[in-house]
């Protein structure tokens, strides 16, 4: 993954544009990221029993820590 994180991975909105604390909770507890944090493109996400991978067509793949 390349590029600085400027967009919310949950809602895709600019991180500086509003409060994303609710988004952060969803990302911590319930959801993998759906939007690329560098360009806000919707990512192709595959959830598996033990993790997830999320792929942006421009910025590549990220995976869960677990």
């Amino acid at each position, binding site marked *: 993954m390349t590029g600085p994180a400027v967009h919310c991975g949950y809602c895709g909105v600019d991180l500086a544009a509003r409060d994303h604390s609710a988004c952060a909770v969803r990302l911590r*507890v319930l959801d993998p990221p759906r939007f690329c944090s560098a360009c806000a493109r*919707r*990512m192709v*996400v*595959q959830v*598996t*029993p*033990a993790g997830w991978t999320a792929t942006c067509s421009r910025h590549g793949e990220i995976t869960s820590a*677990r």
Partner: protein
Amino acid sequence: MTAAPEQVDVLGVAREQVLERGVGLSEEQVLEVLRLPDDRIPELLELAHRVRVRWCGPEVEVEGIVSLKTGGCPEDCHFCSQSGQFPSPVRSAWLDVPGLVRAARQTADTGATEFCIVAAVRGPDKRLLSQVRDGIKAIRDDGNDIQIACSLGMLTQEQVDELVAMGVHRYNHNLETARSHFPQVVTTHSWEERRDTLRMVREAGMEVCCGGIIGMGETLAQRAEFAGQLASLEPDEVPLNFLIPNPGTPYENFPVVAGPEALRVVGAFRLALPRTILRFAGGRELTFGDLGAKRGMLGGINAIIVGNYLTNLGRPAQDDLDMLQELAMPIKELGRSL
């Protein structure tokens, strides 16, 4: 002057009817349970737990699930982030066979005995069935003998027979909600079409897994109606989900089901279905948190999905396994039935 009719306590009735005789509560009785005040929830859960131990035994069935085909579904199930009809952020994805084998291995490594392959479709086409067939063969070639279930939407008789031939032992197809509420939840197919698939699955000898989602705007009476309709199907397993209001779906702003309300549902459904595998499925993390999940496990639940769900994340599998150990609940082993 005539004496006022004596008030009959539904939990007292359930003790004799369900615990002693194994006869599930009727729709009307379930509604009474769902209307019990909060201070009677501990009593309800204690009874439901005794019922499950008496009629199902002490073991807990552990399952993992994976999405083989994600998103882009033509149906309009209002709770689902995978419908192509809503502006959900979920994009279409296919899991390849090596990915499926890895997911099955991850599931088996937790001690789970069930692995459910799920696709977001109206019903399977030839490509999807071919992928399932190849996937099951590859899982077996990997030395993994976990029991395989599928959830691929509505089936034809020919497709049912194909799945049986592949060795699929259980088929999931949720009725989702009460028949009277279903048209508010789904408009692209009917409750009856789903029931027809379940009938074919049962007649073909596969185990029937059929449950639904609580918190989609149904009334308490409709929850009781749903419990009664599930009981009349005599399913082998009922997965109990609590709505996760996912962004982009028509239900994105629906409230999360409150913990006490959800616990009443768990207890009531166990009393309606004394011999059925009652599985904690999606939404329990949001509704109950860690503490409530334990109360549910001690309130009639005897199966869980561990790890992540299809598009949402669950608790790490180890957390649930630790919880079962702490509760001294043995995990069902392969080859045993509950």
